[in-house]
């Protein structure tokens, strides 16, 4: 009798837990469903469904018109290409340059190292917004405004990435390096042939963080792009809003297309993504 009771209790507890999980999952999936479903609806229907449960239900006059408008009229793929190019440059440079700095600081001994590490930690608390005008003027004087390089390079050296690499290399066995030096390897060779291949998890972490940072960056491209040629996706999305009129159908279709690469990336690197969140303590 007691066993049957406790079995029933266990089932109820499990049921409640699963209901809780479902609720939490719904909270996370809800906005994505809302986004996707609304992107298929005409403007008038989106407005009337906006704040009730129908916003999550695909019904009514569904079509791909918003997507066609976004691709043809709003020139989505032009901005998509720009975002892809900038993000690739940014991710490649952010993962390698910061790794070099992290390696030097973590594995080598030289004078002033402690000061450099303290400076990096101190720099990480300075908000990007507070130095953005100075950065803009530097990029301007280097003649890099309105270029892919100008969009990608200035934020490549990022204190957080440096510190992550520094911590990673600091924890690696020094014997590896010593053995390589005895075998006559140069520091460049040690870095590229030994250290980097052994650093895949941290490289993935930095790459994912860098991807998210670059893909969704709004402020820097606002200043650096000077005409339509190099505008990125967040800027193009922002221009769909105005005080008097917002075509929500286009906004949702544009956002859906913009989110797809991030979702694909997340699905492919799911494990590494979770590891990066837990290891860095930072959410993307």
């Amino acid at each position, binding site marked *: 009798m007691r066993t049957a009771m406790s079995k029933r209790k266990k089932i109820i507890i499990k049921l409640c837990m699963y209901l809780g999980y479902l609720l939490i999952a719904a909270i996370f999936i809800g906005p994505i469903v809302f986004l996707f479903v609304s992107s298929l609806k005409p403007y008038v229907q989106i*407005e009337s469904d*906006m704040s009730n449960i129908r916003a999550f239900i695909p019904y009514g006059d569904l079509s791909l018109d918003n997507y066609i408008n976004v691709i043809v009229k709003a020139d989505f793929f032009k901005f998509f290409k720009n975002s892809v190019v900038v993000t690739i440059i940014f991710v490649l440079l952010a993962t390698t340059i910061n790794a070099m700095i992290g390696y030097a600081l973590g594995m080598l001994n030289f004078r002033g190292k402690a000061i450099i590490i303290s400076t990096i930690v101190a720099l990480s608390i300075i908000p990007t917004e507070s130095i953005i005008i100075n950065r803009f003027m530097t990029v301007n*004087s280097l003649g890099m405004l309105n270029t892919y390089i100008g969009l990608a390079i200035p934020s490549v050296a990022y204190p957080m990435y440096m510190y992550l690499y520094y911590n990673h290399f600091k924890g690696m066995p020094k014997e590896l390096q010593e053995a390589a030096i005895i075998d006559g390897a140069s520091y460049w060779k040690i870095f590229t042939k030994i250290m980097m291949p052994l650093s895949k998890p941290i490289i993935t972490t930095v790459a994912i963080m860098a991807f998210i940072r670059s893909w969704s960056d709004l402020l820097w491209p606002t200043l650096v792009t000077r005409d339509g040629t190099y505008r990125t996706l967040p800027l193009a999305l922002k221009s769909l809003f105005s005080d008097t009129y917002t075509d929500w159908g286009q906004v949702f279709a544009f956002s859906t297309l913009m989110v797809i690469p991030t979702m694909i990336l997340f699905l492919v690197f799911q494990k590494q993504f979770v590891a990066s969140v837990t290891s860095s303590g930072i959410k993307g």
Partner: protein
Amino acid sequence: MKKKIFAGLLSAMMVVSLAACGSSETGATATESKSETTANTADGTAAAATDAQGGYEGKEVKVWISSGAEDDIYREMFDKIEGDLNITITDEYYSKDELDNKMQTSSIAGDMPDAVVADYLLIPKYYEAGLVANLDDYVTDELMDDYLPSVVSECTYNDHIISVAQFDSGLAFWANKSMLENAGVRIPADYKDAWDKAEFEDALKKLKDSGVEWPIYVRQNKPSTEYYTWMPFVASFGGDYMNRETGLCTGTLDGDNTIASFDFLAKLFTDGYADATCDYEDSFQKGENALALYGHSKYQDYKAALGDDLILVPLPDMGHGVYTCSGSTVMIMTTGAQESGKDDAVWAMLQEATNPDYIKMVVDVNGAVPARSSVMDAIPDYCEGGTLYLYRQQLESGISFLRPYTPAHMTIYDAMASVIGNIYAGADPATELHDAAANIDEIITENGWNFQ
């Protein structure tokens, strides 16, 4: 040794990479010299205007436009003007924030446009920065005489004409005639006949009692727009957003009369006349409200939903008179255009854009009030008995109130968006306005934007 060189190289690379964080002396110098050469020169303008008879053909004009509902029609218009004048127009569309950022950095980047189409409230900041050309010697008497008084006001800054406009904004209550009639509410014939405070409160009560759950919609889903739509109420309570003499907010934005107007706004929610949780745009179309405090831009949507039941009702007199708010998109010529000798082409373009045909082309799309009386004469809606006649009557009679015309506009706009959002959420208006006034004044003083 190798190790030291390698470590040194890596450290140097880091320093170079981080150098982007530092300031650039060259850039700063460039800015200063640019500012010196872009001062507003009325004399230069006059000389250029004399040369501006023809001679602009083949020139290239770059226009930056604050994007909105008019984007497509502007593209069409600029294409036509290109053909009309035989000039090349490069029109680029940016969100308001992006345009503002780009304008502020354009003298550093050296890519100032030749003309800008933007909210008139953004212009003083650019003018003070030496980016906007005076148009005193370009505009004709014919144009100025045909303009609505409110348009002349929005185009004038520091006693100079600095912009031209195709249209102005219209603001009154959109009302559902049947609902007002069912509730036994008197419908004012024109602005001189507007409700007073007691009658307005009584109207709201009657509407509520007649079964209209939320008698009024104030676009609570977008608090930033209330900076515009609540202005007539602030004025009618005897308040203002800024002391127009000093250019500062303390004592005015948080003065007794302004606080009283926002107390009244808060009361609309606490008394159950407006739904604080309404986060959607089509409340009025759905028949949830009898009154909507919304500008001209909703005309087409509201007309489609309500048909002949849609009427305009003047805003009430809350003690200090009946007011409306005006001011909209304007077109400016930059000092960059003057320096590069393109002012003739730019002025020809602006003149063409303010021709009746192009004005009508744009207002047919955005529903705004045509800037020229002659254009309104040709549109039945703006003639006596027309649905939008009240807009015309209000703007022609000079009861429109402009939001503060100051370089600090974006600062006040952002602060008020958050103040109003907080009031919707139940915050105390007096506390919110006191804090906002102090914060705004700090920024105004730091930037020297107060009027000396």
